[in-house]
C-alpha cells in the first residue's frame, strides 16, 4: 500500500497496538490447538484465523509489508486447517508458533527500524500447504490479448455490463493444467462463471463436451463481466491470478458510458425508497473498552495527586470558615470524598490482570518441557487479580526466570516421576491473590524439592559461604542461599535457565518493585516461592523525617521500626566496629549512619557553655569522651529509623520525626539518576518538594559492609551456639489491653499505624463509628466487633486505634491501653477449639496474652468496612 496519507500517525499507532493485541490473543489459541490436535474445534481455528487475518489487515494499513506477507502465509495454513485440507499434526503447530514468534519479533523491532527476515518461517509455512503437484504453471499471458480480442467483443454487451458496475476480465485457460489435471470440465467453468457474473465472450464453443479437450488443444480464452477483482476471480475459477487480464473498457474501442453511470444512483435510490426513514434512531451500542495512551493516564494520575495536595492545603482554610458557616464543612466533606474517589479510580485505570502475563508463561512451559522431554501442566489461580501496569511489567522478567527454573529444576522426567510414585505429568501452580494494598503470588511445583545440604555444599564450593557458617545454618537458611549473587547449582549451563542470571537477580527485581520474596522447599514434595508486592508503585505511605531544616520521606515499606534515644543515650550505646558505628539492637549489632553525615550536610551542635550553635568537626558518633561529651546535651534526643536492606538492616539517625503521609512518587530526572540516596521526590503541601530516601542506595553510599558486622556479631555471640535455636526469629509484639485482665498481642510488623484517641474523637452515626484521620474518614471497629471477646472497658479510659498493614479499606481497630512492646521467642499454646481471629495464647510476664490472627482480623474488617460503605452509599 502506498497511500500512507490515509493514516494519521495516531491511527498508525492504533493499528500497531491492535496487531500487538491480536498477537497476544493468537498465542493461547495456537497452544490450545496443539493440545487438541485433530480434535480441535472449528471455533478455535476460526479465532486464530480471525486474529491472523486482522494482523494482516493492520499490517497492510500501516505499510508493514513484510509482516503482512508472513501473516498471509500463516493465514493460508489456518485456512487449510479450517477447510480440513490440512490436519493438525506435527510439525504444523511448531511451524505456526515459529511464525507467531517471528511476527512478534518483527513488531518488537519496529522502533529500531531493522526488519528481521521472515523468509525461513514463510517457507516453512508454505511447505505445509504446497500442493504435491509440482510447481505452478507460470502462465505467460498474451500481451497482445487486448488487440486480439478487441474487435471480437460486442461493445453493446460490454457497455451494459460496465453500467451495471461490473469489471471486465479476460482469462486464458490451459486445457492440460486447468481442466485435465484438476479433473474439471468446461461445464464446471461455465457454472462458476454464472455464479459470479456473466460470460461476455469465449473463443470456443460453450457447448463443447469435456471430452473435446485433448492435450493437444490450444489455450482457451474467455471474457467475463463480474464485480470481482482478479484475485477473487482467480480463486473462483481455480486458475493462477497471473492469467487474468483486466480489460479497461476504454481500450476496447468503446466510449465511456457516463450517462448510464449517472443514472445508477437514481435506480438504487428507488429501491431504497421502500422503508420509511425516520431520523433519530442512532442508538450506538456501547463499546465496552477504549484504548488510552498510558502517558495520558500517568498525567491524570499526577494531576489527581496534585489535587489531593491542594485539597490538603485548602483544609485549614475551610475549617476556619466552617466556624462561621456550617455549609463549608459540608462542602469540604464532599470535596474530600470526591478527591479520594477520583484518585482511586484513576489508579485503577492503570490496573491490568495478572493473567496477561500468563500466556507468555504457558508458551515457555510448553517449549521448555518439550525440549527437556518433560510433561508439565501450568495451573494459574487468580489470573484476574489486577496490578498496576508498571508493576506487571516489572514482574514479567523475574517471573519468566522463575517459571524457567521451575520447569528446568522443579519437575522431574516422566520416568523418574512414575518411579517416585507421582503422576507422570508435573504441575506448576501459580496462585495470585490480593489482600489490601498487597498482592501475594506464589509459584510452586510438585517436584523433588531442594536439598538444603546440596545448596550448602555448592555455596561452600563457590566460596559464597564458609563451611562453618553453613554448618550453623538451619535448612531454611541454607535454601535461602540460592538468593546469593553468583549462585547456580546447574552443573551444565543449559540454554534454559542457566543464562548467567540467578535467583539473586529475581530477588533484586522483586525488591525493585518494593516487594519481598521467600522460598520454601520440602524434599520429595516440591518447592514454593512466595512473592508479595504492592499493588501500585505510584502512591506509597511514607514517614517524613527531618534533619536540620530539611525534610525527607522514607517509604514505610523500607522501614522496620523506629525508636527514640534520649539525650546522651546515643553516645553511650554507639561503638565503633571497623569503619562503622554500630549499636546493640535486639540481641544483635545494628550499623548506624547519620543522615546529615551521609548527605554531607554541615553538622552543628548547640554548645551549652557558650549558648551558641557550633560547627561539628568530628564525624564519628562514638568516642572516647563518653559520658562527658559536650555534644550530648546539644544533640538532644535522636530517632533511630531501622531500615531493611535485603536481609540486612541498618539504623538511620535523624533529629526529628514528623507525620506519616501518603505520597505521590515522582521519579528523578535522568540528570539526577546518579544520586543513589534518593529514589524519587514528592510534593508535600506545606513543605514543597521533598526527596524520598532509598534504603538500598543509602547503604551503598555509606559503604556499609554488613559482613564485617555479621562477623563481629558471631564473634561476640561465640560459644552460645547452643542457645541459638532459642534466639532464632524473635517476633516483636505489641501488647495491649481491651478490658481489665484481657490482654492481647499483635506482631508489630502487621501494623501500619498506632494512634492515641479520645472518646470524643469517635463519631457515631447509627451503628457506624468513625474518626477524622488525615482528612479522610476512617471507619472504626471495637475489637469486640471483630472477634468474640469481652466488651471494651479501657483501663483508665485510655484508648488507641491500631491500623493493620495492607488494608484496602480505611479502617482501624479501637483497643484499650497500649502497654508495651516485647520480643517474643517462645511458641504459642493453641486452643483445641480455636476462636476466630485468635492464633493462640502465651504467658508473657505473668500475663495470659492472646495473640491476634491479623490475617483473619483484616479479612473481617474488610467485610465490615465493605458493608458499612454500602450502607453509607445508600
Amino acid at each position, binding site marked *: *500500500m*502506498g*497511500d500512507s496519507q*490515509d493514516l*494519521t500517525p495516531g*491511527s498508525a499507532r*492504533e*493499528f500497531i497496538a*491492535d496487531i500487538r493485541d491480536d498477537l497476544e490473543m493468537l498465542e493461547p489459541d495456537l497452544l490450545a490447538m496443539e493440545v487438541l490436535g485433530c480434535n480441535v474445534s472449528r471455533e478455535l481455528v476460526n*479465532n486464530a*484465523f*480471525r486474529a491472523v*487475518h*486482522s494482523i*494482516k*489487515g*493492520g499490517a*497492510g*494499513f500501516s505499510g508493514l509489508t513484510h509482516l*503482512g506477507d508472513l501473516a*498471509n502465509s500463516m493465514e493460508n495454513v489456518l*485456512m487449510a486447517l479450517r*477447510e480440513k485440507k490440512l490436519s493438525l499434526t506435527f510439525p504444523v503447530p511448531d511451524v505456526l508458533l515459529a511464525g507467531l514468534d517471528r511476527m512478534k519479533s518483527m513488531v518488537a523491532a519496529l522502533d529500531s527500524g531493522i526488519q528481521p527476515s521472515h523468509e525461513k518461517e514463510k517457507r516453512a509455512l508454505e511447505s505445509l500447504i504446497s500442493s504435491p503437484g509440482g510447481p505452478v504453471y507460470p502462465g505467460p499471458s498474451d500481451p497482445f490479448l487486448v488487440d486480439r480480442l478487441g474487435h471480437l467483443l460486442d461493445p453493446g454487451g460490454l457497455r451494459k455490463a460496465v453500467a451495471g*458496475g*461490473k*469489471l471486465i476480465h479476460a482469462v486464458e485457460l490451459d486445457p492440460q493444467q486447468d481442466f485435465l489435471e484438476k479433473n474439471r470440465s468446461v461445464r464446471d467453468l461455465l457454472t*462458476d462463471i454464472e*455464479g*459470479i*457474473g456473466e460470460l461476455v465472450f469465449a473463443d470456443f464453443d460453450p457447448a463443447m463436451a469435456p471430452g473435446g479437450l485433448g492435450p493437444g488443444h490450444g489455450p482457451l480464452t474467455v471474457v467475463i463481466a*463480474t*464485480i*470481482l477483482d482478479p484475485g*477473487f476471480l482467480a*480463486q*473462483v475459477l*481455480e486458475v493462477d491470478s497471473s492469467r487474468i487480464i483486466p480489460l479497461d473498457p476504454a481500450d476496447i474501442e468503446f466510449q465511456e458510458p*457516463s450517462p448510464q*453511470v*449517472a443514472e*445508477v444512483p437514481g*435506480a*438504487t*435510490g428507488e*429501491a*431504497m425508497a*421502500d*422503508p*420509511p*426513514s*425516520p*431520523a*433519530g*434512531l*442512532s*442508538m*450506538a*451500542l456501547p*463499546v465496552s473498552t477504549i*484504548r488510552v495512551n498510558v502517558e495520558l493516564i500517568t498525567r491524570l494520575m499526577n494531576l489527581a495527586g496534585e489535587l489531593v495536595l491542594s485539597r490538603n492545603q485548602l483544609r485549614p482554610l475551610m475549617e476556619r470558615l466552617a466556624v462561621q458557616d456550617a455549609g463549608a464543612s459540608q462542602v469540604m466533606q464532599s470535596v474530600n470524598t470526591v478527591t479520594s474517589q477520583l484518585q482511586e479510580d484513576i489508579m485503577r485505570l492503570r490496573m491490568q490482570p495478572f493473567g496477561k502475563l500468563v500466556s507468555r508463561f504457558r508458551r515457555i512451559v510448553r517449549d521448555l518441557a518439550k525440549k527437556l522431554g518433560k510433561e508439565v501442566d501450568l495451573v494459574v489461580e487468580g489470573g484476574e487479580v489486577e496490578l498496576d501496569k508498571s508493576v506487571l511489567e516489572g514482574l514479567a522478567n523475574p517471573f519468566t526466570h522463575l517459571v524457567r527454573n521451575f520447569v528446568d529444576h522443579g519437575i522431574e522426567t516422566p520416568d523418574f516421576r512414575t518411579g517416585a510414585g507421582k503422576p507422570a505429568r508435573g504441575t506448576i501452580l501459580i496462585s495470585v491473590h490480593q489482600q489490601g494494598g498487597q498482592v501475594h503470588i506464589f509459584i510452586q511445583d510438585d517436584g523433588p524439592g531442594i536439598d538444603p545440604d546440596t545448596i550448602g555444599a555448592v555455596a561452600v564450593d563457590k566460596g559464597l559461604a564458609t563451611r562453618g557458617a553453613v554448618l550453623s545454618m538451619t535448612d531454611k537458611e541454607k535454601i535461602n542461599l540460592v538468593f546469593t549473587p553468583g549462585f547456580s547449582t546447574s552443573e551444565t549451563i543449559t540454554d534454559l535457565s542457566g543464562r548467567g542470571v540467578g535467583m539473586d537477580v529475581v530477588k533484586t527485581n522483586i525488591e525493585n518493585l518494593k516487594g519481598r520474596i521467600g522460598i520454601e522447599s520440602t524434599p520429595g514434595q516440591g518447592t514454593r516461592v512466595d512473592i508479595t508486592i504492592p499493588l501500585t508503585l505510584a502512591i506509597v505511605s511514607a514517614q517524613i523525617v527531618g534533619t536540620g531544616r530539611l525534610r525527607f520521606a522514607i517509604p514505610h515499606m523500607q522501614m522496620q521500626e523506629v525508636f527514640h534515644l534520649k539525650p546522651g543515650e546515643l553516645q553511650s550505646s554507639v561503638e565503633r566496629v571497623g569503619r562503622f558505628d554500630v549499636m546493640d539492637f535486639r540481641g544483635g549489632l545494628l550499623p548506624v549512619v547519620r543522615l546529615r553525615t551521609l548527605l554531607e550536610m554541615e553538622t552543628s551542635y548547640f554548645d551549652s557553655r557558650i549558648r551558641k550553635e557550633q560547627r561539628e568537626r568530628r564525624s564519628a558518633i562514638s568516642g572516647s569522651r563518653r559520658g562527658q561529651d559536650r555534644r550530648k546535651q546539644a544533640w538532644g534526643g535522636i530517632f533511630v529509623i531501622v531500615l531493611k536492606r535485603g536481609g540486612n538492616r541498618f539504623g538511620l539517625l535523624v533529629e526529628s520525626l514528623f507525620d506519616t503521609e501518603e505520597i505521590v512518587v515522582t521519579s528523578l530526572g535522568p540528570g539526577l539518576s546518579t544520586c543513589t540516596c534518593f529514589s524519587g521526590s514528592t510534593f508535600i503541601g506545606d513543605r514543597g518538594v521533598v526527596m524520598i530516601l532509598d534504603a538500598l542506595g543509602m547503604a551503598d553510599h555509606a559503604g556499609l559492609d554488613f559482613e564485617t558486622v555479621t562477623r563481629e556479631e558471631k564473634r561476640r555471640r561465640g560459644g552460645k551456639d547452643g542457645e541459638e535455636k532459642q534466639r532464632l526469629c524473635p517476633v516483636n509484639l505489641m501488647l495491649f489491653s481491651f478490658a481489665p485482665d484481657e490482654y492481647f498481642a499483635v506482631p508489630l510488623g502487621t501494623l501500619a499505624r498506632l494512634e492515641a484517641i479520645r472518646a470524643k474523637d469517635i463519631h457515631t452515626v447509627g451503628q457506624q463509628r468513625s474518626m477524622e484521620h488525615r482528612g479522610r474518614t476512617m471507619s472504626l471497629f471495637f475489637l469486640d466487633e471483630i472477634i468474640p471477646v469481652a466488651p471494651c472497658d479501657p483501663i483508665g479510659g485510655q484508648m488507641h486505634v491500631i491500623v493493620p498493614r495492607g488494608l484496602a479499606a480505611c479502617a482501624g481497630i479501637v483497643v484499650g491501653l497500649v502497654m508495651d512492646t516485647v520480643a517474643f521467642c517462645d511458641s504459642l499454646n493453641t486452643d483445641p477449639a480455636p476462636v476466630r481471629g485468635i492464633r493462640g495464647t502465651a504467658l508473657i510476664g505473668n500475663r495470659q496474652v492472646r495473640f491476634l490472627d491479623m490475617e483473619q482480623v483484616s479479612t473481617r474488617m474488610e467485610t465490615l468496612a465493605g458493608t458499612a460503605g454500602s450502607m453509607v452509599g445508600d
Partner: protein
Amino acid sequence: MKFLIVDDKAAVRSTMVGILARLGFDDVTEAVDGSDAWFKLKAEFEGVKPETFDLVISDMEMPGMSGLDLLRAVRGDRNLKEIPFIMVTSINTKETILAIMKLGIKAYIIKPFTKESVAAKLVQAGFLKKNPDL
C-alpha cells in the same frame, strides 16, 4: 447518502470514515459487528423506525455474526433485501465468494484499502462519478 460501516476494528472503521469523508460522504454510521449492524438496520426502538441506509459497507471476517451472515440476513428481509452492499475483505474461499455473489453485492473492497481503491469501488457501485482527480 447514509452509509453504514461495519467492522470490528475501530482503527479500520475510522480509516474508512476518514476516506469516505474526503470523498464527500459524511453521513456515516458505524457498527462494531454484524449483530450491531443488524440492530441498526432493523430494530425499532420505542416505536421509532430504524434509519434507512443507502449503502452497507461491511467487513467479512468478524467475530459472532460475520459479513456473510449479515448479508444473508439482509437479503432475507422483506424491507432490506434491495439494500446495496459492499463487502470488505482480503481473503475468501471459492465457496464464500460464490455464496456472496449469489446473495448479490455491489462490489468488493480489498483490504488494505486506500482512498483510491475505495473511490474506484464506489464508482463501480454507482455511488460516485468517475473523477479524474482521484
